[in-house]
């Protein structure tokens, strides 16, 4: 499967994400710089990595969301190409409007960096098909601004349409309804604050993140 990892000034999880994707798909992703205007031909998966794109200036993800390559990402998402945004990638996807809501400063004001337990809410998406609904998995978080906010109507809609992919099993950052990850209405765009690419093999202390990429590979191939 051909895939692309988008790289912004300040991205710092791009390499981990590329290694994770390659270890599951067997193919090295193309690393695509933010100044590009087009994605490589035939890309079946676009990954927007974590980090601090543009130094988190203005708002986390705000400047990245207006970069040339992200216009191409938004267009590809509109055509149904799977897009996964992790951590800063999630923040960027909300800033583009591909996903609803916003990520605010953590409730406790601290940067939270540790393993957390997540509940898989929905195993019907292309991102969660290898998990069981209701399953608890362990994935690390590392963020300062992961406190998901959306108005009550949007939250009800996300719940009603089964678009909450993951919730935190315990208190982490104050997120509305403990939301850790959501998908768009089309089901082809996922944003999540936890880092599945950091739990790919036993040496990482667990491999609960691997199944996300395996499910994606199966869906896209």
């Amino acid at each position: 499967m051909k895939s692309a990892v988008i790289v912004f000034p300040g991205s710092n999880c791009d390499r981990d994400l590329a290694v994770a994707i390659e270890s599951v798909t067997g193919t090295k992703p193309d690393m695509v710089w933010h100044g590009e205007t087009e994605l490589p031909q035939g890309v079946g998966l676009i990954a927007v990595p974590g980090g601090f794109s543009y130094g988190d200036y203005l708002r986390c993800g705000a400047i990245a969301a207006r970069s040339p390559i992200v216009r191409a990402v938004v267009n590809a998402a509109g055509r149904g190409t799977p897009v996964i945004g992790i951590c800063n990638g999630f923040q960027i996807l909300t800033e583009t409007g591909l996903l609803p809501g916003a990520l605010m400063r953590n409730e406790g004001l601290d940067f939270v960096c540790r393993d957390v337990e997540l509940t898989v809410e929905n195993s019907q998406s292309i991102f969660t098909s290898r998990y069981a609904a209701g399953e608890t998995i362990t994935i690390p978080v590392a963020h300062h601004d992961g406190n998901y906010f959306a108005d009550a109507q949007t939250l009800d809609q996300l719940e009603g349409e089964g678009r909450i992919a993951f919730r935190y099993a315990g208190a982490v950052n104050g997120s509305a309804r403990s939301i850790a990850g959501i998908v768009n209405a089309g089901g082809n765009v996922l944003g999540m604050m936890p880092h599945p690419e950091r739990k790919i093999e036993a040496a990482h202390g667990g491999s609960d993140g691997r199944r996300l990429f395996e499910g994606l590979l199966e869906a896209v191939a």
Partner: protein
Amino acid sequence: MKLRIVVTLKNGVLDPQGKAIEHALGSLGFSGVGEARVGKLIEVDVADGTSDADIDAMCQKLLANTVIENYRVEKQ
């Protein structure tokens, strides 16, 4: 023309930084401190005659995230 754009969190959006400021003012001994909210002030130089529609578009497309923020433009 210089614009001063004041970006504030919408009512109902929790503001952890504002809460921390409230507590800090309280612990400094100031009594009667109510709610504190943190916003941003952005100053932008634009060409004279820039239309209100363009200024509004700048705010909506980039300077404020209207999911969580309101903005107010002052021209100087």
